[in-house]
């Protein structure tokens, strides 16, 4: 049931040490403001779940919030490596990071199975690939009609899902539009959820009858954080800050420059800082 509250209270009440947390958003609508609040509140031992870990997860990992990463592609899209993620995996800094690695198809199906209350997902996948050799959770079922063997993965059922959406109405119904990724599935699959939005409106008004909406009785904490997806973007609000994604490579390359940046821009800042970070409106 939707509850409006501050981002600080949302993270304090919904995210616990040791939780499995899915912060989703497929390039679009990545919940940076909420992720930064998790860092400020110094959560530890998290299992971080995300198809495409990018800068936000580089920050969480570099600040020591995560013990495990469940993912299918981890990089700075179009720029290069995630230096903090690599440092954790290759050199165990700030501490070791265990990996549970899938393909995109497997993870998308695993979220879909979680939203569908199924214990596992099946796909025509991983054929001839090495991932099943290093990820024991990839198994198989046999079709009871054709005998075909299909790959399986366990359904993803996070303790907490965190997403950023475009708008919420006064009841707490939540609207997404554009590239919706796996956010709806992540929220429906999770036990608890935090949803930041660009704005809270009285009413969604005229819209497609098939608009992507999470009803108020399917969501948890709802928080207005204008600009809360920056440097990711919000369809119709502001564009992706590609210049920042490029700049991040130098910031994150060394531990010192990373820590210095985080101190100023995350530890000493708050959600209200995001509004000013938005590039020109899309």
């Amino acid at each position, binding site marked *: 049931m939707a509850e409006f509250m501050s981002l600080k209270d949302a993270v304090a009440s919904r995210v616990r040490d040791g939780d499995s947390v899915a912060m989703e958003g*497929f*390039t*679009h609508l990545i919940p940076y403001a909420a992720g930064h609040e998790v860092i400020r509140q110094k959560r530890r031992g998290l299992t971080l779940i995300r*198809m*495409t870990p990018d800068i936000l997860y580089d920050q969480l990992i570099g600040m020591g919030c995560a013990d495990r990463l469940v*993912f*299918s*592609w*981890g*990089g700075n*899209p*179009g*720029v290069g*490596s995630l230096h903090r*993620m*690599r440092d954790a*995996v*290759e050199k165990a800094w700030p501490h070791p990071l265990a990996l549970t*690695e899938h*393909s*995109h*198809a497997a993870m*998308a*199906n695993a*979220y*879909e199975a979680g939203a569908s209350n199924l214990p596992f997902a099946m*796909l*025509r*996948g*991983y*054929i*001839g*690939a*090495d*991932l099943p050799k*290093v990820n024991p959770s990839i198994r198989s079922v046999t079709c009871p009609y054709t005998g*075909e063997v299909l790959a399986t993965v366990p359904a993803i059922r996070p303790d907490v899902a965190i997403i950023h959406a475009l708008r919420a109405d006064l009841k707490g119904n939540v609207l997404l539009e*554009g*590239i*919706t*990724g*796996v956010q*709806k*599935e992540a929220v429906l699959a999770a036990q608890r959820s935090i949803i930041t939005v660009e704005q809270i409106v009285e009413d969604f008004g005229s819209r497609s009858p098939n608009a*992507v909406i999470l009803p108020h009785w399917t969501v948890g904490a709802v928080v207005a954080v204008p600009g809360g997806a920056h440097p990711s*973007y919000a*369809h119709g609000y502001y*564009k*992706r800050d*590609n*210049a920042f*994604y*490029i700049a991040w490579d130098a910031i994150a390359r060394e531990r010192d420059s990373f820590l210095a940046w985080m101190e100023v821009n995350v530890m000493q800042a708050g959600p209200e800082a995001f509004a000013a970070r938005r590039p020109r409106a*899309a």
Partner: protein
Amino acid sequence: MTMHTFHTSPVTPTEMMTIAAARALKSSDVCFVGIGAPSAACNLARLTHAPDITLIYESGTIGTEPDVLPLSIGDGDLCDTALTTVPVPEMFRYWLQGGRITIGFLGGAQIDRFANLNTTVVGSYDEPKVRLPGGGGAPEIASNCGEVFITMAMGNRAFVEKLPFITSMGHGEGGDHRARLGLRTKGPTRLITDLCVFTPDPVTKELTVVSLHPGVTREQVQENCGWPVRFVADTSQTPPATEEELSVLRALHARTRKAHGGI
């Protein structure tokens, strides 16, 4: 008309790679686009000889026509110019696994002679020397698309005798390996590099050079490849970049640099 008559700087090997890759695509193709070099080739094709090509990015954007090259597979421009945008689970279930994609266009960090790709790790998986981004959509793109094109720049660290990790299967151990695993799709049918174009041998499936880019020698190809390269007897020369191809590609990159604030 060849590049020598240009009043512009000569074509670079990377530009030649993108142009040769773009030529492999047709207007009737439905293409699942990997980020980076494949994205440049697919959009160059769309802006030149294949205006009606359907480009699909794994973010869910179907039939997209970006004005600039996206930095990520989910830039807003992809959604704004798409026929429609679907949820990511649907993209992988109905569209990729559904068997509706004719061409999957991939890049990679490392490749072997049977067009298997590694984008996961260098060194051992548990104690990697270099942790790469991982497979993303590649494992299922490689198995579910009608056929697969690959584009990569050559070099001894990229074109290797043995992959430390097979992220996505090409022709496996060669021959009928794909068929033995029950795959009915063609797998990699073309590898376009900065020096030449490979296609798999009809029987052994080993990548074989069929054409050399203008000015490139067999020796250069071998020097940049970690396995003994096979060439078809009548290796041809890749047709040089036309003025149109080069000017459209350079304009696309210029627009892209401007839009992304300098990459």
